[in-house]
């Protein structure tokens, strides 16, 4: 039986205290398996982005455990979580978040360089990733010389370069036109079909349609789930044996 690539078990996240306390997530259990794309939907303030930041190890839960590839993130420490983000987890943001001072290929090569890869090897891998997203001709351009769609594709290339197995995308099409947004989702879908696990935060149903499952959040709680869970999930829950 395969383990989920990402697992949140009874995870809660509380911000502030007393009168300003905000419970962003309340005992949420969530999993994403290799090969599946899970969409997370909900209104503003429902905890979608909090779920993503916890999944990426950028934040720590107030209670519960977050595991990536079987490793409890809490036990890894800051350096361990950073290593996971360099090697296993890819992030795609709504605002692209490319480094303006680096070219497209350098932005894509960034996690590899940070991981100590020689510059030449990192650049080659980055160029290959850019080719996957159809932007190899623009490798030497800086972000402010690219359109929004091109920047987002560079961001996706950065999220998938190397052998990343978990892709976290936070409203990746929010700043794009419809056609470009569809292209981005197609790339994400393709990556998941190739074996990665993807978590897509969106509030657009038509974007959620690209996913295998949709998890609905409201006020920090999973209120509904639709779609077909993978066999592993059913085995996990003891639904099937």
């Amino acid at each position, binding site marked *: 039986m395969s383990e989920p690539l990402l697992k949140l078990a009874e995870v809660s996240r509380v911000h502030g205290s007393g009168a300003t306390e905000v419970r962003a997530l309340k005992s949420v259990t969530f999993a994403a398996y290799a090969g599946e794309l899970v969409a997370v939907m909900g209104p503003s*303030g429902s905890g*979608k*982005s909090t779920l993503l930041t916890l999944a*990426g190890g950028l934040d720590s839960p107030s209670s519960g455990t977050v595991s990536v590839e079987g490793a409890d993130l809490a036990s890894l420490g800051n*350096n361990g979580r950073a290593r996971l983000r360099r090697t296993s987890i890819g992030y795609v943001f709504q605002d692209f978040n490319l*480094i*303006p*001072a*680096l070219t497209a290929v350098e932005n894509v090569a960034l996690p590899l*360089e940070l991981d100590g890869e020689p510059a030449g090897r990192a650049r080659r891998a980055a160029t290959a990733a850019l080719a996957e997203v159809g932007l190899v001709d623009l490798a030497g351009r800086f972000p402010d010389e690219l359109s929004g769609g091109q920047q987002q594709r560079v961001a996706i290339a950065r999220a998938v370069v190397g052998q990343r197995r978990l892709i976290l995308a936070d409203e990746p099409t929010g700043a794009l036109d419809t056609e470009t947004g569809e292209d981005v989702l197609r790339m994400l879908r393709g990556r998941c079909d190739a074996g990665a696990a993807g978590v897509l935060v969106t509030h657009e149903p038509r974007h959620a349609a690209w996913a295998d499952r949709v998890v609905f959040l409201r006020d920090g709680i999973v209120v509904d789930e639709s779609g077909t869970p993978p066999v592993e999930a059913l085995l996990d829950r003891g639904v099937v044996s």
Partner: protein
Amino acid sequence: MRRLRISWAGWRLALRLGRREAWRAKGRSALVLVMITLPVIAVVTTAVLASTINVNAAEGVDRQLGTKAAALVTAQPGIKDLVQGVDPGSGGWSAAKNRPRATQAQIRKTIGDRPMLRVDLDTYLPVRTEAGLSDGMLAAELDPTDPLAAGLFSLEDGHWPHAKNEVVVNSHLAGRGPGLGEMLTVPSLKDGAPATQLRVVGIAESAAVKNKPAALALPGSFPAVEDDQSATWLVGGGPVTWDDVRALNKLGVTALSRAVVLDPPAAALAQEGGSSDNTAAVVGALVAVMALIEVVLLAGPAFAVGARRQSRTLALMAASGSTPRQARRVVLGLAVVLGTVAGLVGLVGGIGLARAIEPIAQHYNGDWLGPFDVPWPAAVGVAAFGVVSALLAAVVPAWIASRQDVVAVLSGRRGEGKPSLRSPLLGLVLLGLGIVGAVLSTRRATNGEVFIAGSAILCVLGMVFLVPVVVALVGRLAGRLPLPLRFATRDAARHRSRTAPAVAAVAATVAGVVALGIGNASDQKENRETYTATLPMGQGLVTAQVDGVTDWTAVRGAVAKYAPKVTTTPIVGIPEQYDGAYLDLSVRADGEDQSPESYGGYGASAIVSAGAVLPSLVTGNSELAKAVDADKAAAVLRDGGAVVFTSRRPVADRATLRLEIESDTGGASTRRAKVSVPALFVHVDGRVTAPAAAVVSATAAHRLGVTPRTTALLLDGGVSKAAEENLHEALLALGTDVDAPSVYVERGYQPDSYAWLIQIVLGCLGAVLMLGGTLTATFLALSDARPDLATLSAVGAAARTRRGIAAAYAVVVALVGAVLGALVGLVPGIAVTYPLTRTAESICDDRGCVTSSQTGPFLEIPWLLIVAVVIGLPLLVAGVVAATTRSRLPLVARLD
């Protein structure tokens, strides 16, 4: 009227926004405040202390007159047409040979029948202390119990002197020698006369003198100074007016009048001379300009970042109808707020600090300080400097902010456009003018240094305008650098408004350090290469005491004791002074005085040869020996003649030796002798020092009627430094109370100990300012780059990456600034070596002056200092930044 209302409303809005922005961005505001407040505090403190230390006439009148006297009058014989100002020392007088000194009765007749007290307040005598002999003791004589003397001395312990063998001393003198109950010994000024001994019966502080020895006794207690025929009185009664002073002047009497000092009439002030030292004022102005440039460059990045943080606000204002001028005011409003706060804090802080330091300044100052005095015009001016520097620092960011692309800002695009061409062109023009100015200034005969300093400022300003282009160029070349450096370099290039001022501040500092370093090193090179050894290396010389009478047997004994391996050779000649007589020897030929401009150091105007042999002082000096034809010299000396050292080139073969002996012993008398002798003239230029005006034969000396005497003792065989010190102390003990024989050992050029200290101070100053500028830029860059650092964290950068990027920012700013600054600093540095190290000697006669020789300029580049500042310091600064930077990267903020 409407325009004024709009204008005032605009400033009101700008100041309100500035106040809130200053409070909101506390860290950045604190940075700017520190940059501006510290220099204001430093200058205000200095100005207040200087004003306090300086005792003006009104503040000092009590120190000279006490608290009761109306005036201090001094009568002297032999003067007429006396005209003075407020200060009796100003003005002038003519000589009147036989005019007697005015009497007390005459003075009373002129200014009325007033109480008068005879005093002596300006005689300084030597005194024996525990350490030996101290000259410069104020030996005041007056009756301290007289009411007119009140306030001149204050009795602290014991009692006033009651008899002429009693004295009170101040605490400074008591601490160094005779205390209460002990004997004060004042050596006689006449040879052979016994010293005067006075019993110390009290300790009293002088109002005029603090950290110098002072003593007070009844009139006639101290040894008389023979040639002082003046008489001084304190005068009581009502005010001594300016008319009284003029009337006293007609008697040949000077007067320091309290009334005139406190309320000087125009006529009195007109007599006060004044000398304006333009050079000091110009140098001061240049220093102030450079300080202003440094503050503006250091504070500029903070305003640049602030302006960018406000860019969305300004863009929204523009979308609502504001003009570029109103946008500029928003940025300048912050500068006004911060500059005003900095100025006020600096003013109050500077005054407070001066007050706190005042006791320390008093402790180390030799004289009593004046009353605590705040020079308000200067202090307020310095505080205004704070406001001006903040405004100047914000001008460029305000201008850039007012010209931003509103659409780009509202759509969230960061970064700046391409650099304009105007500023770099202006920079090239200024730099070119500065270089040309420096080159032309090297040809100036006077004040070249001042003009070169002005050219240096032009070069620095030109460099400042070129920095953005240089930073942009460096950014383009960063492709192959490691990630942290690549990121930092390109980010620095993208945000030139923040980076360029910091780089310029570092560059300006390094330019100054390099220029001053070259000047200092070249000066040392000049000293080294133009050094003329007085003696052959290792040879020593003991010279007679000033009056020429020396116990040479005792001297030889001291040499044998402390330097037993040394052999001694006496120098026998015609002394310049002996036993109270002054012997002046001149040599004439071809109708001109042939005496060299300077010679010797052996106490003899002419060396007397032993037979026909030239003394070792000549033959042992290789440069001199080359100039002398030894055979001809021997022939001349054998014939009873003289070998004459001269800077001219006479053609005669004979010289007239003239000797004038003035003696004061038993009354003034002058004896003259003149002989014509065969002569050999030896030309000496400035590089060779002749031992005397001439070497004369014993026959010639005899014909002049003078007895040759030992004037010095040569020491051969090596005298160690320790032996030289021991010998020096031993010779001091041999002397009379006034002077003693002295020893000198030729050790070649000894570098000025200050030279290394200057290099170290320059290096440290460069380090401090470089660290300040780099920290400013790095702190602001890290703050500015927070979103990028969060992205780095999101893609897995380790926590230490932030530290690496901080160090990279520091290296970029410091290294680029240091390299630029070193290149620019070479210009004034090399130029200043011309006026500093080039000297010309001239020969002048009735027809005018002709340059006879020229040395220099000397150029030495202090490579160690430059390498340390250009490479070592940036690395050190980067290390400090890395060590003090928090290593944690910011995490991505909540996104929903």
